[in-house]
């Protein structure tokens, strides 16, 4: 998890300086991971790529962002051990991430 956080710090630096910053938020509800995105202006990105990384920083899933700025996928409890990073890139250098900690996952996994 510490390694994951170190990588994320670099990602955060890359995205923090943009005027129209992308914000990513993710949570788990009844065994489903729900990812929400929006720009700091309040607008919703209509396309983008979502990468899901495990605690070893391995990409375990790549999905397109839906037109409403969200994406949903079933929680893989085994792959999520140690937490997950949800990284979203919308083009033109807009990217952001959300860390689902083991506590976040436990709180929403329904287990």
């Amino acid at each position, binding site marked *: 998890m510490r390694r994951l956080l170190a990588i994320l710090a670099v990602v955060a630096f890359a995205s923090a300086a943009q005027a129209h910053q992308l*914000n990513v*938020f993710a949570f788990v509800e009844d065994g489903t991971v729900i990812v929400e995105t929006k720009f700091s202006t309040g607008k919703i990105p209509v396309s983008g790529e979502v990468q899901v990384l495990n605690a070893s920083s391995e990409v375990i899933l790549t999905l397109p962002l839906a037109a409403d700025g969200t994406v949903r996928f079933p929680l893989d409890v085994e792959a999520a051990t140690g937490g997950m990073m949800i990284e979203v890139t919308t083009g033109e250098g807009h990217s952001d991430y*959300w*860390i689902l900690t083991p506590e976040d996952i436990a709180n929403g996994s329904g287990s």
Partner: protein
Amino acid sequence: MKSIFTSTLAIAALTGTTALAHYGMIIPNDPMISQEDGRSVQLTMSFSHPFELNGMVLDAPVSFSVTHDGETTDLLGDLVGAEVMGQPGFTLDYPLARPGTYVFAMEPQPYWEPAEDSYIIHYTKTYVSAFDDDEGWDTELGLRTEIVPLSKPFGLWEGNVFQGIVMLEGEPVPYAEVEVEYYNEDLEATVPSELMITQTVKADENGVFTYATPTDGWWGFAALNTAPETLAFEGVEKAVELGAVIWVRFEEWDD
């Protein structure tokens, strides 16, 4: 900039109580909670003279709530009694479920102030941003009296101006008087004159006031008006001061 304060004479400690302004206080551990900070915010509620760290009793409030994304939640039953500045106050550890701005607001019980021969009711609030999302930073709660921010009430640099509109009973208050005071948390700040403990500005004809802070830290803005009604004290009707208080933190400019 802070050194200018600390190098001046420590007159504040010698002053009496006549010049001190009262402030309801809601102070978060951080007004901008990032995901790396965790998933909750810790709040400390008190009633004080914040420059002198002179605490007063904060009885159980009439109401305490949080507003987020247009929804207001009663948190009165979640407050935990605590000693703040040597007097009874409250704390709250509030979980932040989603991004956005959370506005915490408190209506205290009327406080009898014999020195002013009146009651004081300070409607107090503060704004907390969760997870780098500032949506809702200009939320108006519709309190009986409140300062509606025109400057984003978090993420300000020291030296920035803060602007707000003074509202009373849903209407702007032309030329409202606004008292401004620094929360002197470590008692390092001193003043060359007690007149400088509480700064005073007036709003313009639209109820808009402006103040530039000289240093980083928490600053309280209190717009004061007198209620049309009175309250009885020992059988005698007394005036009621209505305060619209907002607490705003200014961040250190580190270049």
